[in-house]
């Protein structure tokens, strides 16, 4: 376990080595939250609530969804694709650790860094500018914490899956980009799932995406309470377990037919 903790620390150091990325990140997220705030204000246009969410809840939803994204989002799929394409994966395989485990830890290191240096201060700033509503209930905060850890896991698993496909496709830049757009849309980051048309809500119930953003954000804004929130957490946990299976299968096939690029 020591080595995995050390990897988180190293990732922290790497994030610090690239400060510009960090600053531009803050800027982009603030612009996004601002834009969605004004957009939703216009949509609400004086209505007190839509689909069971008040305007203030909606603003909070948008702000929390983006700040949570800073935690669960990572680029390990792109990194894996690059390591595989350039043959660097060879170096990873001569080390006594699990490659996928290490990648997950790198993602976690990145996530924790952004949570503390980005999401928390960002949230304070956003709360000063826009009217947000924070729950005073400790249980809500606790469930939210569990929920974003689960969303990190689901998102990372999807990234690992996309990353592993590089072993078979050699060039999957398009797939990675498509996956990103898909997750932003279907996870409920841009639009709460309850706003989607009925038939698509039906479909999305059977997909893992809502576990990434919709469930934690709804818990935070008290859109889900009590049994609804617990159900949400269970759904997330179920997806974490289910996704282990395709990852393990693909990984074992990939290792067998691995070709190291570039000699």
């Amino acid at each position, binding site marked *: 376990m*020591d080595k995995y903790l*050390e990897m988180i620390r190293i990732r922290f150091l*790497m994030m610090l*080595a690239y400060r510009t990325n960090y600053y531009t990140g803050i800027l982009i997220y603030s612009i996004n939250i601002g834009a969605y705030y004004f957009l939703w204000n216009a949509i609400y246009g004086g209505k007190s609530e839509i689909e069971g969410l008040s305007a203030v809840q909606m603003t909070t939803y948008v702000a929390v969804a983006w700040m949570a994204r800073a935690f669960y989002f990572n680029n390990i799929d792109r990194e894996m694709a690059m390591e595989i394409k350039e*043959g660097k994966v*060879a*170096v990873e*395989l001569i080390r*006594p650790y699990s490659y996928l485990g290490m990648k997950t830890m790198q993602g976690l290191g990145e996530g924790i860094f952004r949570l503390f240096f980005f999401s928390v201060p960002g949230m304070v700033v956003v709360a000063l500018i826009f009217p947000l509503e924070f729950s005073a209930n400790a249980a809500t905060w606790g469930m939210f914490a569990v929920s974003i850890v689960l969303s990190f896991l689901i998102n990372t698993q999807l990234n690992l899956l996309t990353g592993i496909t590089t072993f078979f496709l050699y060039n999957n830049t398009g797939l990675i980009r498509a996956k990103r757009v898909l997750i932003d849309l279907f996870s409920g980051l841009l639009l709460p799932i309850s706003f989607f048309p009925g038939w698509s809500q039906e479909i999305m119930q059977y997909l893992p995406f809502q576990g990434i953003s919709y469930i934690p954000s709804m818990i935070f804004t008290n859109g889900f309470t009590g049994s609804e929130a617990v159900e949400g957490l269970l759904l997330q946990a179920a997806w974490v377990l289910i996704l282990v299976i395709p990852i393990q299968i693909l990984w074992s096939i990939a290792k067998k037919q691995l070709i*190291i690029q570039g000699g």
Partner: protein
Amino acid sequence: MNAIEVNGLRKEFKAYSSRPGLSGAFRDLFTRNYKIVPAVNDINFTVKQGEMVGYIGENGAGKSTTIKMLTGILTPTSGQVMVNGMNPHKERERFVQTIGVVFGQRSQLWWDIAVQESFRLLKKVYKVSDADYNEHMDHVIKTLDIEPLLDKPVRKLSLGQRMRCELAAALIHNPPLLFLDEPTIGLDVLVKLKIREFLKEINEKYNTTILLTTHDLTDIEALCERVIMLDEGNIIYDGALRSLKEKWGEGKEISFEFLERAELARLQTLTEDLGAKWEMDEKDQIFTALTGDDDEVISQVIARTVAAYKVRDVKINEPSTEEIIRNIYEKGMMHHG
């Protein structure tokens, strides 16, 4: 105990070929032509603990593929591999704990962070105790002279500096077996010498087995008593470097520089009965006699030539390992053993 045991090892790759033209490109979308190419073709060899073995061959001969199978990165198509008593790709995580690998063309240090941070992570990864680390690595760091580089990020290091750090990184857990895949590629002479010295030292000190691939045969000459030579996936020679020279290094070259004008034809007739062949380098006026290995013949050739012309300089050369190996490749090497 044998460090490496390889039996009938084979690795095949699919080599895809594209059809020509636009219609060909469309057809490639659905089905693709491929050939199965063996990169390593049923090879056998063993390496004893503590041996330093040079693994040589032309580009694409299958050296790197073999190393990747021996280190557990690639799964063999068929055959058995036992390294340090384990099956590399079956027990990868436990196995790699017992080996060190340096890929000359890839860095295993983290690019953006200081060298010592990489070392610290690797120390954790290999579960090396503080006491072991300090004792062993202090020495390594001192010998390779990388103390002043430790707090610099890897991307700021020169190739020679980086390579020394890579070597140190591969040795953090003091592995009994070390794979070096072109460790001296692109390095200057001084760094090369330092690395060779260092390898010799750890081999003596810890009885470390070293398998080395390189295109620089001076590396092999300096380090290895045994060479394994690979050509198109087959082992064409496996044995002592010295007997390779004896078997394939045919004859000697005697070069003369004369004080006066000499004629090739006259030299030729002078030594005709000895079977020497003369060549002339027009530019430098150097005349070279190619003879057999017989000492008597060589001395006769020199005596007759010196009697005929005034001589400024004489050199007797053995063909270098490089020439021998070039010869072997050119001849295709059908008769091995």
